[in-house]
Structures are given as C-alpha cells and as structure tokens.
C-alpha cells in the first residue's frame, strides 16, 4: 500500500460550516471530499467554506468534486468559498479558469460570509 497523506475535518465558524482538508486530493481521496461536501449540504447548509491551506496537491478529480458542490450550493442560494494560499494550488485554479468561478480567499477570516 502506498502511503498518501489525506485528512478531512468539519468545523463551524460563526455558524458557517468549514471543511478543512490536508494532504493530497486526487482520484483516490476526492470521493471522501465529495462525501463530506454532500453530507454538509444535505444537512441544509447552502454556504460552505473549504479550507485548502493544508493541501499540497490536487488534480482534476478534486476540481470536479468542488465544481459539483459549488453548483449544489448555488442552487440552494449559497456559495462555496475556497481558502488557499499555496502558489501551486492557486495555479491549478488559474489554468482551469476556476479562479473566476470560485470565491477564493487567502485566509479563513477573509472567507467569512
């Protein structure tokens, strides 16, 4: 088995759910992110903060999961805020044009809605 760091945690800040992810989000781990996002949305939360400050890698599968969750949030009148500072991770949002789709912040404080 290949060791791959991935951790996901759900918190709440000022009544807004914050999903904190650490490690690598790829085809192997993205299903856990999808499940967590779906679960939080199913609990009636239309607005979510996705904290990617501890993420060292993400691929198109991860982006696909985030786009799917963003659509569900917006259908419910909410938003999916992304918090990211790592240049490599921001670059992936930029080259796919998703930096213009997601509200992206560089800290949790700035993402608070």
């Amino acid at each position, binding site marked *: *088995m*290949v060791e*791959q760091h991935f951790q996901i945690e759900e918190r709440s800040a000022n009544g807004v759910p914050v999903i904190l992810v650490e490690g*690598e989000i*790829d*085809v*192997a781990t993205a299903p856990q992110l999808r499940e967590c996002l779906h679960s939080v949305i199913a609990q009636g939360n239309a607005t979510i903060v996705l904290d990617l400050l501890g993420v060292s*890698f993400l*691929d*198109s*599968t991860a*982006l*696909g*999961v985030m*786009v*799917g969750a963003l659509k569900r949030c917006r259908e419910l009148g909410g938003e999916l805020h992304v918090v990211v500072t790592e240049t*490599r991770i921001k670059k*992936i949002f930029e*080259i*796919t*044009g998703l930096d213009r789709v997601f509200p992206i912040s560089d800290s949790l404080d700035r993402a608070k809605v």
Partner: protein
Amino acid sequence: MGGDPLLSAPSDTLGVGDRVELAFPARGDLVVLARLVTSAISARAGFDIEELEDLRLAVGELCLLALQGSDRRHGDLRLEFRVSTDSIDISCTLEGAAPALTARTADGLEAEQLSEQILSALVDEHGREQQDASARAWLRKRRKGPAA
C-alpha cells in the same frame, strides 16, 4: 580505457535516450506511484523544480485520461518515460481493461475537460488514442534549461 558504462555514467542523472517503464494495476489509489516516479525521473533528467511539479500534475492527468471510459477493474496502467535532448516524452497506456459498460457521467466529462485544460497549460504537446481495450494518453515537455 573504455570502462563499464554503468559505472562511468553519473548515478543520479538520466541522459538522452534513457527509457524507464512503470506498470501497476489500474487503481486510483496507485496513481500516486506514477507521480512519485515522475518526480524522481524529471529531477534526474534535469528539469527544474517548477517543471518537475508541472510534470507530476500532468502525469496524474494522463493516468486519469487513460482510465476514463474504461472498466478499470482488470487492467494495468503502463507508463513509459523517454528522455531526449531537449524534452521528456511520457505515455500512459491502459491495457487489458474492457470499455466501460455505463455511459460517462456529467462529472466524468467535466473532469475530462479539466484534465485537457491542465495538460494544455503545463506541457508542450499532448494527445490520446483509444483502441479496443487499450487507451493511451501521452505528453511531451521541453526543458527550459540545458540537459543533465
């Protein structure tokens, strides 16, 4: 003179014409292997850290594209790395897997488009072919600096 070429070649570099192959069961949890090997090979082929990170991400996307639309339960992914004077060529072939029985989902199609966008931004050339039970995705990335 003419010593053993294995002993005279620098041990930490890959030179022009060198080829490396990696094969593993076509499982998503093993794609990390492809990325790890890509980092090691790219560094030894003289790519800088930024290029290396680009290649690591791009190879993950190659694997995803090769896996798209196939029943991956029984296949193998085979990666081939070839180092040339100014570039590296990497191909990823899914072998021994039957075409998927179910149609691609909207999520799958979206992820595929994202893969294509990522590859277009990170490498100089890329493409893919599908033939019966075999799907192949490939890329070429040119080195900014001199060869190792």
